[in-house]
């Protein structure tokens, strides 16, 4: 019988994002290691695990009395996790926008300074000269402020970018390990791998197994 089976829309694979999400949800005593996450949430002890391919989930029987508290926190995490990543991407976009605005403002001020320097101060009377010098000083100060601002935002952008790179790396690790595990386990189950490639247009890995019948 043919079918489609799908896992959840988003797989939580970045451990630091999971920590942030738990903090946002108000969880406390968060402890994370390579294989599990434990925390306290609304009076319950929560124990989440990481599968071999890095996916954060939990293993529990339906009849376990802790299942409801785990489901509650897990559902909320699944809702917040993609939002958090979206927010991080939005932060990068805004930082880039800010840096571009500062860059343009810097160009404007630099041009202004250039024009001020070209004015012949000797031709001005004393009042105008004082005003002109004050203007030059003001522009120079503004330029300095912009440079400081630029450095600050570039550092913030770098940090956010590093974070996003880490998330991307987590996703890559997930895809690679999942792919390897599927192939290994599929072949162990008597299936023959007939296709294994990345469909770049859709950004999906496609694995196809076949069982030839006698």
């Amino acid at each position, binding site marked *: *019988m*043919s*079918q*489609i*089976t*799908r*896992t*959840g*829309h*988003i*797989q*939580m*694979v970045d451990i630091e994002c999971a920590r942030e999400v738990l903090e946002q949800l108000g969880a406390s005593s968060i402890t994370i290691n390579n294989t599990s996450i434990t925390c306290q949430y609304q009076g319950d002890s929560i124990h989440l695990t990481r*599968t*071999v*391919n890095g*996916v*954060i*989930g*939990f*293993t*529990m029987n*339906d009849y376990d009395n802790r*299942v409801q508290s785990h*489901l509650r926190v*897990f559902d909320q995490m*699944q809702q917040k996790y993609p939002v958090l990543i979206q927010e991080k991407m939005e932060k990068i976009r805004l930082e880039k926008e800010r840096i571009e605005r500062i860059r343009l403002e810097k160009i404007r001020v630099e041009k202004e300074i250039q024009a001020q320097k070209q004015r012949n101060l000797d031709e001005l009377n004393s009042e105008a000269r004082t005003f002109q010098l004050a203007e030059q000083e003001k522009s120079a100060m503004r330029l300095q402020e912009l440079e400081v601002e630029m450095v600050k935002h570039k550092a913030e952008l770098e940090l956010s970018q590093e974070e996003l790179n880490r998330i991307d790396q987590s*996703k*890559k690790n*997930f*895809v690679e390990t*999942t*792919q390897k*595990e*599927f192939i290994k*386990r*599929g072949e162990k*189950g*008597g*299936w023959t791998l*007939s*296709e294994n490639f*990345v*469909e770049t*247009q*859709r*950004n*999906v*890995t*496609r*694995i*196809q*197994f*076949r*069982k*030839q*019948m006698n």
Partner: protein
Amino acid sequence: MSQESVFNVHTILPSSEVYGPGLRWVLWTQGCTLACKGCWNTETWSKQKGVLMSMSDVKSSLDSAEEEIEGITILGGEPLQQASATLELIHYARSKNLTVMLYTGYYESEFDEIMQQCFDNSDLVIQGRYVEEKRDLGLLWRGSTNQILESPTKHYDVSNFREAQEVEIQIDHDTGQVTVTGYPDAHILEMVEELSTSKLSSRIEKPKPSSKS
């Protein structure tokens, strides 16, 4: 002004290799009253569910499919319970030089005129109800031994196809979502469950569209 056809669609998969020969764009229709005993995909039965898509949206989806696709596959639900829309899609695919594979739970003897046209214009058809007692996972593209694979246009020589069980797993790099299509056995489903978000069976979206109604 003529009204545009509307398709009640369960799912569209932009590319797959387990629903017919080569790489194919796949559409599952929503709605089936045949109610084959043992059908795993009862979610595709209700006509009240699904997404109502205009024919132009369906065609746009096909237009945006990969350039290398060999053809399209229409399954369900029951595509011939939306025969006019199905026929329009078949004609459109053919106009793009794509081959057409059609799954139907009906037998040719039950066809009306439009259903017959759908059949006649398809390069591969799998016809017949899914019969639980005749279930055989080792059949190529079919679920039970009574289902007939044929090529009405003679585009394919069906005797060239070797029986095999096929399953396809897609891993989305952006979201991490894993999609399994085709004819998985318990081992495959267990493996997906073990490597996904949660190991509670109820947390995995259960089988969706049927292709062997």
